[in-house]
């Protein structure tokens, strides 16, 4: 590297560029925020996240056929769910911290043998999912490995974990986003399932 002599050069961050252009750069800062605020406002006012996506409620489940996680004998297809009566579909992943929190509850529900719990293993490395289930226990009746996330998109998966309630006709009647707590189960899902005759 060569050293220049004379006055120190002016490599200062954009402090000395021409005034009008300079001003434009500064105006971009609040402008970017305005766009962001508009997006957030639109999101907020067009429905609460629990209702995302309301479009799917009372609709038949999306069609799919997924491979099993290696070591499990069955994958999961929409036909399995349609035949299974009232059931839960739980979207989970081994990388999802909150999933671990709700896992004991799912184990508990599975132990009561109330209804099938279908697992949608979302964007998860199959070997990670397998070791996760071996460690924590497997509450699922059947699990489909949705490695690419395609099926998740059709289900409107927004954040993991999510839990859907499916009625006897294979329609989505309820969607719960986030960790399923004991209180959610006792106060919302269980009464709904009892109503559906599950």
């Amino acid at each position, binding site marked *: 590297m060569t050293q220049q002599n004379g006055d120190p050069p002016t490599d200062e961050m954009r402090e000395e560029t021409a005034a009008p252009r300079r001003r434009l750069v*500064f105006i971009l800062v609040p402008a970017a925020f305005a766009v962001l605020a508009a997006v957030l406002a639109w999101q907020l006012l067009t429905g609460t996240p629990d209702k995302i996506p309301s479009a799917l409620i009372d609709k038949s489940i999306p069609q799919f056929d997924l491979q099993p996680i290696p070591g499990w004998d069955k994958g999961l297809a929409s036909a399995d769910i349609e035949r299974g009566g009232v059931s839960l579909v739980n979207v989970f992943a081994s990388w999802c911290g909150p999933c671990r929190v709700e896992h*004991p509850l799912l184990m508990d529900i599975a132990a009561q043998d109330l209804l099938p719990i279908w697992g949608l293993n979302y964007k998860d490395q199959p070997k990670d999912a397998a070791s996760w289930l071996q460690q924590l226990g497997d509450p699922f009746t059947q699990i489909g490995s949705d490695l690419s996330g395609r099926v998740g998109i059709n289900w409107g998966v927004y954040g993991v974990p999510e839990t859907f309630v499916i009625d006897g006709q294979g329609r989505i009647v309820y969607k719960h986003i*986030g960790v399923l707590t004991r209180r959610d189960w006792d106060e919302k899902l269980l009464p709904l399932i009892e109503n559906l005759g599950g």
Partner: protein
Amino acid sequence: MIAEIGHFALILALALAVVQSTLPLIGAWRNNAAWMAISRPAVTGQFVFISIAFACLMYAYVVSDFSVANVFENSHSAKPLLYKFTGVWGNHEGSMVLWVWILALYGMAVAAFGGNLPPALRARVLAIQGLIGLGFLVFLLATSNPFLRLDPVPLNGRDLNPLLQDPGLAFHPPLLYFGYVGLSVAFSFAVAALIEGKVDPAWARWVRPWSLLSWSALTGGIVLGSWWAYYELGWGGFWFWDPVENASFMPWLMATALLHSAIVAEKRDALKSWTVLLAILGFSLSLMGTFLVRSGMLTSVHSFAADPARGVFILGFLVVVVGGSLTLYAWRAPSLRSSGRFRPVSREGALVINNLLLVTGCATVFIGTLYPLILDAISGEKVSVGPPFFESSFVWIMAPLFLLAAAGPLMAWKRADLPGVTQRLTIAFAAAAAAAILLVALKGGPWGAILGLTIAAWLIGGVAAEFIERLRLFRVPLIDSFRRARVLPRSAWGMSLAHAGVAILIAGGVGATNWQTESVQVMEVGERVEVAGYDFTLASLTDSQGPNYDVRRGEFTVDQDGERIATLHPEKRKYWVQGMDTTEAAIRTTWIADIYVAIGDPATSGGIAVRIYHNPLVPWIWFGAIIMVAGGLISLSDRRHRVGAPSRARRKSTPAQPTEPAQPAQPAQPAESRSDT
């Protein structure tokens, strides 16, 4: 009665906030000393009234007054006393009271320690603080009143979420809020400076201690949360890139950038408008984090009950505060001129790159957190961004930052001599090479882990090199070095410590993510398993009761080479009221690794599910973080932050009317053309 006093105190605090946010501002504009002086009693009054409200709410919790809806929903008479206290902020309303209380505390601190501030600046800063307080108090009273009554009075409460009944999480929110809210002071200083149109080294010097304090608190708060997740969630992980974690991490990244750029603004009178922008963005991200968590737009483990009405309010507030300050910035900042000039290879240059990397890292986290929301708004498409995204992007942005952190402090201001710096980094090169060779020989992989630990060793080497340089160690007699160490400014000690803490934390994180050994099996009493060279025996399983839960407690003996090294007691609790299970892992640390045992549910075949982990280097994460916080606090105690900044009077510059005429058509200084080639 007590609850009504609390409610009333909040209303009085609101009235004072109105006074605090208007009169001093007008006074500063009209140069009316009496109106400016109102800010100090107003801020004191606000603190007193919010303290009263806070104490009333705490009282209602401690005596289990279930006629107060908030207490009913979040407490229970059988809850241990400690969690009756900490349960106050374990819910939305209470945490907002804590927030405004800390805000008022900071306001008081600015008034108390700001004796050397020019009266107009102090009045403006306190007025902006008052404006923020005003927004939050209206929010509290209008949408989140913690003092609402219930009739009829329930017999008992619904209890606090058992996951929160834990010492780690009990003190996580106050620390975190202390950090979040601390950024409001830097924000207020930034806005006040924009109103005045004046940012000088004295301004930067006043902002720095507040940023340092809030950075230290944020660091502590984030790590406390991470530590909690590590031992309470029961699977040995410590960071999940959960939206709520990200919401606290983004302000931290901004505060870190602010700390570094403020040094340049103070010492070199450069990067001024940039520093102001960081101060605004840091607090804006704190508010944004609050918005995202409270509105329920992002759901996660940590969030409390979400309510869209609150979301609308916070968004409106966000638009006023962030939009307003950024507009003010766009209007006033172009007139801020910096006098300090520097070459790309210089301390300033290194700090600019530091800032660019930190801000890019922050933007990455921001995009990863908000992308699902934004994409949904634009195209209706739903996606989810998990840790894979953050691990493949953020980590790679941070790696060069850590490399630079070793070299930056060795560079001279204005113009650094690169060969000299390289030579002084010999120790760092040696440390990195030694670490790499040792790791390849001993562990052999994975290569990401070896790279990470090599970077950590490099950074430690860099810190050592800088320290040796400062003390002229090995070049002058030891006694001289010792004398130099004694007069070394505390801020220098603080920086070295904080950087060393970062290196240790990186090493911990890298080790923990790459070399964890886990073993999961069903064990019966008397059974023995071997994990990572230790023998674990399940000695007994006992069922008993805690104050508000049933507990199953396992006793594990741990032997190594036939010698007893530990007895561990992991627990599985079932809380009565919410019917929720929690895992209390038992951890034995050797300072180099953790032995971690958690028990799960009984297996149908008899026995119990047991998870045993050997987590190498995890203790270093907590150790490194403690060193970072200590570095921040030591730097905060530096004498420079306590004495006044006399330079302001001398360097009277009036950027509104630049003394040197603006030179609009001077193509001589495009930044790129002077890069060294």
